[in-house]
């Protein structure tokens, strides 16, 4: 996903002199390294200084540039939070903040590198859009959107590298502010976003094996969220399952339950997310997710699919 972002950014940046990228001492991967070589003026490294990374992006945008800020997810939002809030959101500037490794992607690096509350924090900010693509293909589409939109600041939450493509045969194209049906079924609806979508696919297979017709939805447009589409989904299906790699506070699971209550929907809703705690666990990404209870077998058991 990270590499696809880099490819697309290079592709767009070579033709658009307004595009620039400001990083905070992160080694540029793939095509971003090539962008740095080919367009050195439009690649800025502020060093280990995230406040100025965000502040500079705001100033660049105010003078007509189209900047992307780029570093590990925790350091895009947490360290420079007030700069994100005041400089980007309050002034409503079209700057894309690229957070690499949202959730617990950096599974061996410990809690300082886990962006497990990033969705809650980013969605709480007025004017901020939050987009979390689930695979390289979706990352390509949303990166192109980020590079041309004039709406305001965006938190673009990416995984790391090596995610499988899941959406090449999707039933619908990605559209900003809309839920995206990847497959359409009648009984169960599974909603997810970000790289954990692969577990949503696995759970969907379990339902299908049990004879259920399954819808799969990518909620890559986390904010603005498609309330209307979600309510329609709640009314269309008997069961909705939300699987997401984020802390419970501020999660889409809670939002879907609130929407179901307000709409008087009778659909049963189950939600799965990270625990509200710091895990002192190490391992690969799947092992960290399992420590939080986000393991396909455990989810299937909780859903009565054994």
């Amino acid at each position, binding site marked *: 996903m990270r590499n696809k972002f880099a490819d697309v950014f290079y592709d767009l940046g070579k033709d658009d*002199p307004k595009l*620039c990228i400001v990083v905070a001492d992160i080694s540029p991967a793939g095509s971003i390294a090539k962008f740095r070589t080919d367009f050195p*003026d*439009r690649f*800025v490294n*502020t*060093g280990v*200084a995230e*406040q*100025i990374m*965000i*502040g*500079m*992006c*705001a*100033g*660049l*945008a*105010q*003078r*007509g*540039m189209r*900047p992307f800020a780029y570093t590990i997810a925790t350091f895009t939002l947490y360290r420079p939070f*007030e*700069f994100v809030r*005041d*400089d980007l959101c*309050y*002034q409503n500037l079209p700057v894309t903040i690229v957070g690499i490794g949202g959730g617990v992607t950096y599974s061996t690096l410990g809690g300082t590198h886990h962006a497990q509350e990033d969705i809650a924090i980013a969605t709480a900010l007025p004017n901020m859009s939050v987009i979390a693509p689930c695979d390289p293909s979706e990352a390509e589409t949303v990166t192109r959107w980020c590079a041309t939109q004039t709406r305001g600041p965006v938190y673009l939450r990416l995984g790391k590298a090596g995610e499988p493509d899941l959406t090449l045969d999707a039933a619908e194209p990605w559209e900003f502010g809309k839920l995206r049906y990847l497959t359409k079924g009648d009984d169960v609806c599974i909603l997810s976003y970000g790289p954990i979508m692969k577990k949503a696919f696995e759970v969907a297979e379990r339902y299908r094996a049990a004879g259920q017709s399954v819808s799969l939805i990518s909620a890559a447009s986390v904010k603005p969220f498609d309330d209307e589409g979600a309510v329609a989904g709640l009314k269309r299906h008997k069961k909705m399952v939300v699987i997401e790699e984020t802390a419970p506070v501020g999660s889409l699971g809670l939002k879907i339950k609130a929407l179901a209550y307000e709409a008087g929907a009778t659909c049963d809703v189950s939600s799965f997310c990270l625990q509200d705690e710091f895990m002192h666990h190490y391992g690969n990404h799947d092992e960290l997710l399992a420590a939080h209870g986000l393991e396909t077998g455990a989810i299937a058991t909780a859903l009565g699919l054994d």
Partner: protein
Amino acid sequence: MSETLSNVFDAGAARRRCLTYRRRILDISQQVGALHIAPAFSCTEIVDVVYNGLMRWDGEDTPDVILMSKGHGCMIQYVILEEKGILLREDLDLYCKPGGRLGAHPDYGVPGISASTGSLGHGMGLATGMAYGERLQDRDGQIYLVLSDGECQEGSTWEGAMMAGNLALENLIAFVDLNDFSGLERMSEGHPAFHPVIDKFLSFGWEGVEVNGHSADEIHEAVMNREGGKPLVVVSKTVKGKGVSYMEHVPIWHYRAPSPEEYKQACDELVEISA
């Protein structure tokens, strides 16, 4: 484009303007319960020089930027923008009132206001980005940044200063309003290691000069006589509340609005100011 950037600067006219600006701020102080008079009075001459001696104007348009990083000093901006016709008298009449668009800190989107500030330590990063944005687009916009001395305690100010030095942003000119007061105490007493501030900028690759911040021609001359090739800092020694005896160096006037009697006394005093 009318090029007003020249070595000719009428110091007498600047003194008269600054008296007018201070009196206008005092007038506004009688409309509202609280406002930042003293912080505006300490940077009056700095801001006057930027608007009337440095920025290039074509009617209400300019390729340059003034960024009030010490957002609490924005009253001086408002009265100058009113004089220039960029803000209206009604705007100032509705200062900090329902239906108005001017608050006690400047807000991006209001005509003439380049950034939303108020939280200290943001201006240096914004200005660094703006100055670099001008370079990337082959434009020569000059970015004039007004900093308080207190916000030079923010680490972000130095993250930005270091980056501006790295990039050798010649079109970034920062003024430090060195009135020696942060919110709680005198900087020189509470944080003696803060001084000398100019050395810190110099060590980050800036050109620097120290001036009397109430001498408009000295400020102007400092910018005119720069060597160039680097960002410039003009460390301007000022008096918080300058021009009104009972406000000078008295912290409560950071916020307080004068009573009618105090207002009258202030007006009586504001007929001449020595630099």
